């Protein structure tokens, strides 16, 4: 399941909804990403821009790929867009499986691929001129290790 939304999400409620009525899930791994102020107090807000249409397609593709590689009972990707504040939630990835290894690996894979494939862009507003965040080479390397 994928969702792109401006609203916040509740990790506990999302996991509860994903596992409700299921008795075949033995492991749930969640990853959540938050807006971090890397420069100690100078970040006023973060604007998340995306490519409506392609974003949903890419997230669905990434999720499908994870489900082909690992035996997942359920998966969920939520990504927020719009104006966010330091400490706010940005992204949630949930992978549920019978055993922990598949859930850990799938959650890691989902994040690595989301960061290099899904068309989102971050712009930092520090009060002065807003700055587009540069892509990190380490994210590309993290995604490359999965050899898709």
């Amino acid at each position: 399941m994928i969702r792109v939304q401006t609203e916040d999400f509740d990790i506990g409620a999302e996991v509860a909804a994903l596992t409700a009525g299921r008795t075949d899930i033995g492991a749930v791994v969640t990853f959540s990403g938050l807006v971090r102020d890397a420069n100690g107090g100078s970040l006023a807000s973060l604007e998340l821009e995306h490519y409506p249409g392609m974003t949903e397609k890419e997230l669905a593709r990434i999720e499908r790929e994870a489900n082909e590689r690992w035996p997942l009972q359920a998966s969920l990707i939520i990504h927020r867009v719009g104006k966010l504040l330091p400490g706010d939630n940005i992204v949630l990835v949930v992978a549920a499986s019978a055993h922990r290894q598949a859930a850990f690996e799938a959650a890691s894979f989902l994040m690595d691929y989301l960061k290099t494939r899904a068309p989102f862009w971050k712009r930092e507003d520090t009060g002065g001129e807003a700055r587009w965040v540069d892509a990190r080479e380490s994210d590309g390397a993290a995604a490359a290790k999965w050899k898709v």
Partner: protein
Amino acid sequence: MKLLYFAWVRQKAGVAEEDVTLPGEVRDVSGVISWLRTRGEGYEAAFCDLSVIRCAVDQEHGGLDTPVAGATEIAFFPPVTGG
């Protein structure tokens, strides 16, 4: 054909989206970019360093050599920074 621009590519080009008719000789993404660069300073500024330009043809990631014949939508943007 619809062209879309995102993040700083949109800001430099000065446009978010536009409908264009490509010249007949344009075959691929690289041809689209070469043509755009002749259309004004904003496009020239946006596309002066192709190492930081990414594209999608009909909402699929593409490259400079991706054909554009029959495409309905081409998007240009910087490397993605979500997550």
